[in-house]
């Protein structure tokens, strides 16, 4: 690929993200459509979660049900870093949870994301080890158990108020309302979708390199893969570590979007949600999984007008989708570059409708 094309692509993504960010928040970043922001951020996080889980479940065919555990590790490690390291590391940040400018948040968000991502990756390495001996249902149970262990451990860590909700640190202050250092509100659309773009790019590069074929070979037939000279151990652990890393980053982003962190956000069902996105999108298909992540986040919102019936209609739609396309929306296919570009602009188009100012 010529250099100008590669940099052109990066510039295009940055431009679109900045535009997206600007359209929602406006110049002041104080008042914006919080509902829209919420849905969009959840879409972005869902993309990161689903595309990274796809590396494990889709590429290498290992069945992990514990994805939300990595998310939780990332969230709490990130939040703990920004809360406890606040005065030393990021003195420029407001302590009252008020919005932070995009560029002011750059360094802190990089720091907390890396911390969350690396912590999750380390745990991912540990969880990846049993995958060397176990497959299918057994591995699913192990990873499920792991997510529960993480949940129980965090619940018992007092320093992050794991049992209730982590809202920052209490500090001595004259002003009662500012009696604690809130987890800074660092996350904005720009960062979430930047990471989403990054994880999609990494997944694509992996898939269409010699490593991509090796991952798929491990999924198809481990013994044959080994006979080809593929180090299956390395690929399985690599998949877990990489997947956990991005999920950890998503967790840290989530933590700095919420004003408080509750263990309720990391229940087992959330793992299932992500697995559903991956299966629905098509195991292994990056574009399919991305679209499914967005679809499954927006669908419940789109169904809001029918009020209580949406809890009936939503699962029904899932069943119909699975019956009509058991291989997932995209099966094993990928959408082309041009198609993806069109898709991005249409998302931006949807978004640019005038937001209602709060």
């Amino acid at each position: 690929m010529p250099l100008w094309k590669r940099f052109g692509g990066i510039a295009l993504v940055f431009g679109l993200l900045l535009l997206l960010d600007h359209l929602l928040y406006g110049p002041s970043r104080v008042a914006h459509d919080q509902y829209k922001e919420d849905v969009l951020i959840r879409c972005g996080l869902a993309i990161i979660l689903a595309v990274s889980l796809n590396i494990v479940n889709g590429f290498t065919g290992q069945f992990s049900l514990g994805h939300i555990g990595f998310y939780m590790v990332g969230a709490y490690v990130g939040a703990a870093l920004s809360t406890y390291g606040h005065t030393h590391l990021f003195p420029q940040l407001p302590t009252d949870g008020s919005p932070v400018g995009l560029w002011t948040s750059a360094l802190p968000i990089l720091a907390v994301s890396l911390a969350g991502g690396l912590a999750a990756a380390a745990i991912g390495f540990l969880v990846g080890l049993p995958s060397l001996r176990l497959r299918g249902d057994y591995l699913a149970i192990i990873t499920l158990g792991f997510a529960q262990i993480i949940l129980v451990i965090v619940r018992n860590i007092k320093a992050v108020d794991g049992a209730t909700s982590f809202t920052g640190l209490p500090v001595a202050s004259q002003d009662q309302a500012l009696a604690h250092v809130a987890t800074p509100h660092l996350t904005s659309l720009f960062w979430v979708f930047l990471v989403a773009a990054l994880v999609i790019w990494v997944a694509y590069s992996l898939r269409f390199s010699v490593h991509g074929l090796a991952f798929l070979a491990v999924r198809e037939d481990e013994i044959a893969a080994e006979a080809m000279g593929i180090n299956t151990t390395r690929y399985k652990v690599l998949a877990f570590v990489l997947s956990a890393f991005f999920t950890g980053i998503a967790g840290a982003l989530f933590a700095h979007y919420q004003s408080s962190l509750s263990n309720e956000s990391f229940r087992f069902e959330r793992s299932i949600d992500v697995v559903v996105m991956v299966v629905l999108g098509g195991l292994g298909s990056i574009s399919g999984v991305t679209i499914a992540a967005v679809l499954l986040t927006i669908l419940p919102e789109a169904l809001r007008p029918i009020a209580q019936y949406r809890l009936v209609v939503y699962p029904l739609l899932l069943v119909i989708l699975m019956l009509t396309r058991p291989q997932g929306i995209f099966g094993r296919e990928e959408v082309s570059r041009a198609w993806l570009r069109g898709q991005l602009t249409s998302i931006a188009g949807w978004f640019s409708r005038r937001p209602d100012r709060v």
Partner: protein
Amino acid sequence: MLILENIEVSYGPIKALKSVSLEIAAGEIVTLIGANGAGKSTTLRAISGLVPSQSGRILFEGKEITNKPADQIVQLGVGHSPEGRRIFANMSVRENLELGAYTRRDRAGIAEDLERGLTLFPRLRERIGQNAGTLSGGEQQMLAMARALMARPRLLLLDEPSLGLAPFLVRDIFRIIQDINQQGTTVLLVEQNAHLALGIAHRGYVLETGHIVMADEAKALLANDDIKKAYLGE
């Protein structure tokens, strides 16, 4: 080229190989015959590092490869076309072949070997973009062999290439094995069809419940009365 010295392999409490020793010289076709469960496939798996050996030594071109990771053994030049073909069913024929060359980085050489493989197995050329799972049994066997050859092995381990194939296809496959051998690849062939295997091999070993019970020139084994009775159905 390859030497096995007193190799022992167990699956849990079951001893599959009890002290197997054999030797293959460069350029040979050597066949390993024996009944079901005699340990033929296990021998191949031990050589290519897919199962660990409890004791004994395996030497390939003078280098000890006992219990080395499978990927390193492939890199040293041992190709394995495993039992039951084990092709990657949901990938195209081309992707299967590319994976065969996984350990190699010389693009020109890989392209050359791909061309050679497709010349050896013209059926694969017709089906290059097709999903491997849609191939017939014979074509899948060809693919498994072509895939193993993509690593440009000096020693090719073939496990039951005739399994489940129509007789005319089996003859084709065996002719191709001879071609491969004549192009300079040493072959260790495991077969239940002892008659055919001994027909193309230079030498043969007979494996019985984890022991080598006989070793001789292929012609001599074909003429041996015990072998005739036990394995050739005469």
